[in-house]
């Protein structure tokens, strides 16, 4: 773990991007070890059906985690994504029922989710409420609000094949949610790694004052990150609604913690300025493989709470150890 070389400090080019960042090697190792161990005990792990099931589960988390990574990098967090996910599905389904149009449903869902993101952003940047607290409050309001909106699950009336396809469909061998997630991932990756927007997010997270003095509109950048996260929740919410064939007001409980856990596991710092999307991808995969493995191995499902808890603490600690070694 020790290295004397200077090149171990992060390079701006490769620092927040390319594949062999050392923190990610740990994660790749964990992931590989998990896959090997699980598949030895249960060969069905590698069955096509299971791999697709894992990927589809990853897709939902990854879509939102891409936004959350941006938020954490610029020093903010959004705990309302789980509650918003449920609300979005209900609204999207409702609009589809009323209009018979998938497009209008998706647009309504995105508009709503984007507005939630905007609200969170305004609370955090204009009212200066710490986003950890502000978004907990938004979470409460959304959890209450969704039941004011609908008392029961919004059923699918029109059975539009395109709507069903959103969650359960395939293009070639790949499930549509996985393809959507891949697109989101690539766009977010490029945005963070190669654009000024991405570089500015890192700068704002590293020092908001310095970024502002350098002519960046820190508040607006954060606002954008909130809205992007919101919109991605909209996308995920519609996929989930399609998968469940209904808008479920009770969905999404604990989803925010899964997403944040994955992002943190991927090496993104809670204090801002540091993190990568590749790390987030690995974090999502590790968590979902653990979840899946526990079921495949028929272990007690209560371990689905225990194991991720341990893994996150352990991974964060390993990251600290590695960075200390680098600094020596």
């Amino acid at each position: 773990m020790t290295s004397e070389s200077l090149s171990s400090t992060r390079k701006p080019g490769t620092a927040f991007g390319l594949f062999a960042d050392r923190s990610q090697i740990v994660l790749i190792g964990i992931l590989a070890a998990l896959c090997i161990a699980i598949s030895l005990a249960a060969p069905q792990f590698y069955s096509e059906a299971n791999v697709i099931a894992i990927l589809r589960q990853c897709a939902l988390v990854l879509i939102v985690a891409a936004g959350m990574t941006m938020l954490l990098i610029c020093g903010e967090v959004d705990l309302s994504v789980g509650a918003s996910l449920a609300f979005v599905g209900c609204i999207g389904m409702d609009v589809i029922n009323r209009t018979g149009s998938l497009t209008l449903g998706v647009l309504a869902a995105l508009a709503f989710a984007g507005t939630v993101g905007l609200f969170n952003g305004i609370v955090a940047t204009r009212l200066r409420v710490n986003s950890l607290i502000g978004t907990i409050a938004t979470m409460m309001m959304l959890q209450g609000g969704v039941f004011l909106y609908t008392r029961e699950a919004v059923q699918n009336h029109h059975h539009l094949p395109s709507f069903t396809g959103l969650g359960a469909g395939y293009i070639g061998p790949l499930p549509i949610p996985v393809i959507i997630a891949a697109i989101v991932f690539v766009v977010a990756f490029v945005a963070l790694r190669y654009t000024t927007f991405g570089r500015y997010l890192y700068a704002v997270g590293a020092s908001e004052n310095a970024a502002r003095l350098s002519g960046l509109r820190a508040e607006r950048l954060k606002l954008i990150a909130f809205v992007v996260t919101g919109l991605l929740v909209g996308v995920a919410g519609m996929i989930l609604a399609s998968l469940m064939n209904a808008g479920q007001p009770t969905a999404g409980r604990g989803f925010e913690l899964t997403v944040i856990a994955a992002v943190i596991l991927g090496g993104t710092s809670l204090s801002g300025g540091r993190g990568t999307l590749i790390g987030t991808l690995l974090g999502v995969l590790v968590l979902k493989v653990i979840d899946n493995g526990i079921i495949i191995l028929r272990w007690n499902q209560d371990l689905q709470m225990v194991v991720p808890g341990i893994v996150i603490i352990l991974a964060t600690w390993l990251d600290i150890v590695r960075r200390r070694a680098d600094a020596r």
Partner: protein
Amino acid sequence: MPQSLDAAHPVPPPAPAAAMLKALFRRSEIPLLISLLVVIAFFSIASDTFLTTRNIANVLGQSALAMTAGIGVAIVFISGEVDVSVGSLVAAVAIPLIVVMNATESLFLGIAAALALGLVVGAVNGYLSAYLGINSLIVTLGTLFILRGGVYLYTGQTAIPDEAMLESFFQIGNGRLLGLLPYPALIAFVLLLAFAYVMRHRPFGRQVYAVGGNPEVARLAGYSVKRVKFACFIISGLLATVAGIMLASRLGSAVHVAGLGFEFQVVAAVVLGGVSLSGGIGSLFGMALGVLILSFLSNGLGMLALATEWQLVVTGGIIIAAVAFDEFKRRRI
């Protein structure tokens, strides 16, 4: 000179009235106290069953859990760290409590076992956060999950009933002083006073403020930042245990689903009480007022027969408004 000692400013300046007013207003307690009175006044008018001795005593008893755990969480916040593991801890400590009591018929041994678990969890949180330097939000989120999962695994997702049926244990959570004031309220109040004293008048309390306010300065002043933070996590673990014991008594069992979401309640109250997430700022009395505001709000909205969904919306809105106000005030005054 009057000996009124505020948490952050133990020696208020002997200043003219305007500055005095400003200093008073800078303390979060005053606006909070006003808010609490407004809440109470509102519900007293809106509901005829709200302002009764019995109901007020009840609410004080109900708020005791959050207040007791809130003391510990507030202290951890003031030291510049976060503890969200209390939600699972209140459920976890009930297991050794009930199991040992069932086996030994001794309340004392049961409480000792519970405190031992609380101590261990606090120490683990503290060691991982303070000594290994892992972000405490991650650590305590991790232990939140691990403990809850552990409770489910141990109990097989059922509750463990209290079979010893000790009257003393029943009284802890359900008894009332003079038939009126619930014991939990009394316990929480005594703990609040004790820790408020520690935070204001003991060197340790001042070290906690200094460590949270500016860890580098605290280190240069010769404090062991790690040790102070470690101690804060242990205090939080022990106080959450006390809350867990009171809850177990009210439930007459170790309930595996107890305390789900309790961490949100406590953190919301602590933040509402003006304790800053960034450390070094806030007082335990502020925290206590935050707890009372939320408790009276929940009780009052219930009296108005407002559904859960409205309660959630209202509470969420109030939290945002309160924290925004606090921030506004901090910047302007």
